[in-house]
């Protein structure tokens, strides 16, 4: 405390100019050495949106589970689809991964809400990466988020198809019994 108060005084004005008036400490790039997080990534980490789970068995829910613990990245993205309109009404996610992975999946859930299923399939990982200003070494996180969206949609459609088949089978049974 004393050191901090006194330090400012002891620093000669010339030295203060060199340090940019404490600017060296205040500049995140200088502190982080170029590995600083973009404020959007930090925001998604500090205030996560749409973290949660829907019921897996619910017919209106599609679940995409991508990645592998061995790679250090696992994303689970779930969408709730309104059957009649084909629109995604709600989405949630859970992620095991670094800050960029969490942010990428969080952004993915935000972007799919309120869109048609065909529309969300066009979301590209490069858009997510650009939105979060991901450095090259973190681009695979956005790739995984894109995969998660596609997997969720695929899962929903597969479920729908299976339920549709089951519906046909029971109708046939009824007809047979009748």
């Amino acid at each position, binding site marked *: *405390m004393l050191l901090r108060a006194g330090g400012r005084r002891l620093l000669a004005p010339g030295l203060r100019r060199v340090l940019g008036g404490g600017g060296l400490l205040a500049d995140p790039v200088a502190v982080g050495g170029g590995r600083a997080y973009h404020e959007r990534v930090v925001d998604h980490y500090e205030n996560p949106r749409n973290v949660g789970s829907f019921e897996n068995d619910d017919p209106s829910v599609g679940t995409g589970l991508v990645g592998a613990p061995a790679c*250090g990245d696992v994303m689970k993205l779930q969408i709730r689809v309104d059957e009649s309109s084909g629109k995604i009404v709600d989405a949630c996610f859970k992620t095991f991964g670094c800050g960029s992975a969490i942010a990428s999946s969080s952004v993915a859930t935000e972007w799919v809400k309120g869109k048609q299923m065909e529309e969300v399939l066009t979301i590209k990982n490069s858009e997510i990466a650009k939105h979060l200003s991901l450095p090259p070494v973190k681009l695979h996180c956005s790739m995984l988020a894109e995969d998660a969206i596609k997997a969720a949609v695929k899962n929903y459609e597969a479920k729908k198809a299976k339920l549709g088949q089951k519906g046909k089978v029971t109708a046939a049974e009824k007809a047979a019994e009748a």
Partner: protein
Amino acid sequence: MALSRRLLPLLRRGGCLSASASPARALSMAAVPADADQEEAVTVKGVRISGRPLYMDMQATTPVDPRVLDAMLPFYLSRYGNPHSRTHLYGWESDAAVEEARARVASLVGADPREIFFTSGATECNNIAVKGVMRFYRDRRRHVITTQTEHKCVLDSCRYLQQEGFEVTYLPVRPDGLVDVAQLADAIRPDTGLVSVMAVNNEIGVVQPLEEIGRICREKGVPFHTDAAQALGKIPIDVNQMGIGLMSLSAHKIYGPKGVGALYLRRRPRIRVEPQMSGGGQERGIRSGTVPTPLVVGFGAACEIAAKEMDYDHRRATTLQKRLLDGIRGQVDDVVINGSMEHRYPGNLNLSFAYVEGESLLMGLKEVAVSSGSACTSASLEPSYVLRALGVEEDMAHTSIRFGIGRFTTEEEVDRATELTVHQVKKLRDMSPLYEMAKAGIDIKSIQWAQH
């Protein structure tokens, strides 16, 4: 007046912390979230905090002990002579200071001062030890034995030797991090020129059985080199009892200055090395270059202090480590300690939190300076090779955090680090699909993951 103005916000903020109105808190420099109006706030990982992060990364480096700095300053400002100047007082007094420091370093490890050679650090010592010994005896000795958990500089020197045509055996370690001594004895061949096993591991803090290894090496007539950078001043070292032939020492791990280290080279039986630095033949021809008097004096002072305070520091570190571990384990489960608990230096605690990824945990621990063995924090996306050598599963290797406790770590810092860690782990577990699956009873290892 300025002092009270700065104290006031701290006292105001004291209300929102657990140890709120205690006088100790008001003067603390530990980091808290910054108020919007504070000018001296620092931005760390995208969030403004005031004060500096708590330093819990003592294995990376340590602060210089003020007593060491006191010893060094005269040699920068008034007694600044080159110790190799033979013709005037400045040189003589500088040389006397270097020799005194040499004696201090030697006495901390039970060696003769003539066996200590100053270098720029432990990395240089490891290079001289590994490459220098093997190149000197290159006609008769072609084999080196080392372990998979050595420091990068030893492993890289061995790889360099392999390119020159030598053979290297990288011994595996047991899951608790200790090397199998019987396996080491079996690996020794007639043409083995060096056995290199580090004393205390920098990542997991495990202490290797130096006396046993030294005994075997002495019996078989092979020089025993140990990288004792993390061990010096922390565990008792006696080069004769432990049969050590070469040893690498570093100053900045024991509260000394950065940029200086020392190589211990046994005289009886004499171990010869080929020098890696050519020049004026300083340090008996082993390491040419002006010996940096202030740094060396600092190193000597640090060793002297360490000799006096080793016991006390060890007991204190043990207490603080227990406090940290109990604090964390009492509030979260599924915490794994990497490395043996019995054979460990207490100031190093490497923990894996299951289902939580290391980099995201570090991102949340803005107010604590720790390091991780996770892939994302290394440049190559590979998890730490030390943890992999322990046989830690890859998903667990991504989750490890290393806490370092040192001479200046306070109980308050440990408590705050515990609090912050527990909070972040809980938050990330809520976000983790693996935790959800584990709680639902699904065996994660049985799932077929979609690789890409």
